[in-house]
């Protein structure tokens, strides 16, 4: 699996929103997609996914519907709502800004300070 990073508190919601934005997914699917996108670099405690999903549903960013999985089993599929799409955009922008800021701080040379 290579080197794995622990998920920062609060970023799990962002990751879930991003994963689901690419198409409706069931819980296990969300896990797989995050692993797939991050090429296995991010470690998610599997059970922790569910409280986050429930939270996002309650906050109205996701909606859940029962459907059939690839294996022809009953499963709950999550998809992004309009509010969720907006939230994802806002969070993603914020995250990028943070990353750039932290990146430039870490990359700063002595003269630039």
């Amino acid at each position: 699996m290579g080197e794995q990073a622990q998920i920062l508190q609060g970023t799990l919601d962002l990751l879930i929103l991003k994963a689901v934005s690419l198409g409706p997914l069931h819980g296990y699917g969300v896990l797989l997609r995050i692993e797939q996108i991050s090429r296995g670099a991010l470690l998610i405690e599997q059970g922790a996914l569910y409280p986050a999903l429930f939270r996002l549903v309650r906050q109205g960013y996701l909606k859940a519907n029962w459907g059939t999985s690839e294996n022809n089993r009953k499963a709950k599929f999550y998809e992004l709502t309009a509010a969720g799409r907006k939230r994802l955009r806002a969070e993603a922008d914020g995250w990028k800004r943070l990353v750039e800021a932290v990146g430039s701080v870490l990359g700063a040379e002595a003269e630039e300070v």
Partner: protein
Amino acid sequence: MGLMSWWRATIAGLTRRKRVEEEMDEEIRGHIRERAEDLKRAGVPREEAQRRAKIEFGAVERFKEECREERGGMWMETLWSDARFGVRMLRKSPGFTASAILTLALGIGANTAIFSVVHAVILRPLPYQAPERLAMVKEWIPKAVPDPIPVCAPDVVQFQTQNQTFQSLAGFWGTTFDFDDGGKPTRLTVERVSASLFATLGTQPLIGRTFTAEEDRPGHLVAILSYGFWERQFGGRREVIGRSVTLNRQPYVVIGVMPRGAVFPVVGMEQGEAADVFIPMAFTPEELAGVGDNFNFSVVGRLKTGVSVEQATADLQKIARQIEETTYPVAVRSQIELNALALPLTEQVVGKVRRLLLLLLGAVGFVLLIGCINIGNLLLVRAADREREIAVRLALGASRWRLLRQLVAENLLLTLAGATLGLMLAYWTTDALLALMPKDVPLFHEVGLNLAVLGFTVGLAVVTGVAFGILPVLTGSPRDVNEALKEGGRTGTEGMEHQRLRGTLVVAEVALAMVQLVGAGLLLRSFQRVVETDPGFRPEQVLTASLSLPGSQYKEEAQIKSFYQRLMQRLRQLPGTKAAGASTDLPLEAGWTHLFTVEGYQPPPGAELNRCNHSVILGDYLQTMGVPLIRGRYFTEQDNEKSEHALIVSESLARRYWPKEDAMGKRLKWGPGDSKDPWLTIVGVVGDVKPRGLDLETTPHTYEPYLQNPGDSLNVAVRTPAEPGSMAAELRAAVWSIDPHLAVARVRTMDQVIRESTSPRRFGLLLVGSFALLALLLAGVGIYGVISYSVMRRVHEIGVRMALGAQEGDVRALVLRQSAALLGAGVAIGVAGALGVTRLLESFLYEVKPTDPLTFLSVVLALAGVALMACWVPARKATRVDPVVALRYE
């Protein structure tokens, strides 16, 4: 989350709870299944794949719990499930549950009952408008009487007209009238009141009107009925207005009815009971002429807005000084210093009983506290037993907060069940409580269960539930799951921490019970002393009744005298009579206080005025009461209007003024030396009689023959060898044979009179005593619980000891030693506590010191006895331990 969505989630959570739960299970199961299949595809063997899938997912129950919380709408559901789980847990240990609920029911029930009285008497305002602005106005002659006294008639008018600080001021005076509705004549309490009384109180009549100023002058026979009398006598009919009622054989026209609850006067305003009927004060010219005489009239006033009681007092003092200077005769002025003051009405009414009621509230609070300690103890035991359960639940992912909530929910269930039962107990005992209540407790509000009382009870239940629930959790929540699971094994002994805490609780319990018992013991000893006090007369076998001849019928003194003389004759002739007599007042219920001058006696400078209680007596009154003659003679029929004025004095009076001489033949007169009253010659000395209460000081007393100073009201007394109550019918018949329209009121035996005078003490003692017994019982149960539990836990250890040769006696000693240590510590703390607390009791004690060693000793012995009994059973059980069985347990 907005309020609406929160609410929706709550509702949805409740209605779809089951489905949502199933879906969550299904979703998680699906996840694990998919994972396992992926792993299998990756080449992991089937069983291993399933195991790994589960491990990778993590603690299922914990995540489920988190999901539930994230889902929202949880709180109701958690509450519900907590409650259901609580009920299940409680049902699993019915013994514990029953004893806890019963203890709580007793504790909370007793507290509720007492609180309902405290609420009705102390906390609720007097039944008048803005009662905080009402004040009693009293005169005060410190030289003559230490306490403030009512006001004399002309001064009432002076205060009414001269004051600057009262919005209005009203006089009132309670008396009794015969009421005749054609049946048996009865006695009513009639209040003569100023026309301004109703405005002063701010009370509007329910129907009709109040008195006019014109009606407040002599010659108007009008009456206002109290709500109670109106209901009783006229069935609440409104047509009563304009009808006439016969009072003291005169027709009074009913002009109004007071509203329900507007009781007047209430205890503490003046002696006597609440009025049945109000009539106008209408001072007579004779009354208004009685300057400095007959301080009989009570006065109540409404302060002007913003005026304090102190300002009012200053105002009244100024008027009093004016009155003394301008109206009192010089001779009187030199003797007295007339003062006046205003006293807040509420304090006057409630002040005396407040301490008694707060004492009871404190005592009953102790009972609940001890009960809570017992339950806390039981809970600790359960906590120890449940440590494993709790550890398992923690291991499965329950949060500590959730567990705490669960335990608190269980306790709340217990206390609320206890409170419900307690409320029922309180409801049933209120009547009994009221029957016991002494007459000086002002009950103008209904005592019973109302919102405030209910709130108090529920509050009490919640506080106790949370308090004793948290205690074991805080100290006893498992420190470490692994540890707990290990310790919870078969041979586990209770954690040291628990054991110490439980010991401490029992010590506290013993100490509290000790304090309570000492308090009750001191009250009991006081009561004993009071009852054993020689009243100065022989109360057994004496029947009394009160008679009052209405002036409208008995206009001439000769008529009055003739009536009573004939009555005496009749009573003497009754077959059951040993002796008969009559007096203006009865022992323990002294009426008049007289000021007098002793011939040839120079009081030391600064001495108080000479004063005594005074009775006018007829027939063989002193013989009937059994007051012993010490010197001289009793009165005879020869002590009449024609003979020299005679007087009998009490022993203490004779000793005080003639310590070395014979009092016989000495003379004294009422008022100052130059008053117009005749000199009275002492013809006899009799024993001292308790004038106002068995526990009050004896005061000098004088007796005067009725024929030399007749009046219309007398208490008749008959001594009979038989049971005195059986004479009542004959006594009534004798009175009615002379005057069939005269009410025979207050027919009582002297034993009853004594009981009435001791009823406040009896009330306090009975309640504090029963609370103390309850405390003792609970403490015993507490000790039993701890000792028997510890024996159960130490079966193994005891088995080893016995296998090593310990004898039965050794084992018993082991158990008793533990109990003795708890008891000793509890008693030591209890003694210290009792010494501190009983000082508060001092004013309730009579001839007993708060540190009375006998009481302390008996209480310690009682506690020791109970403790011994409490650990007897466990000790026996310990000696029966079979070492073979105990060790096989290993």
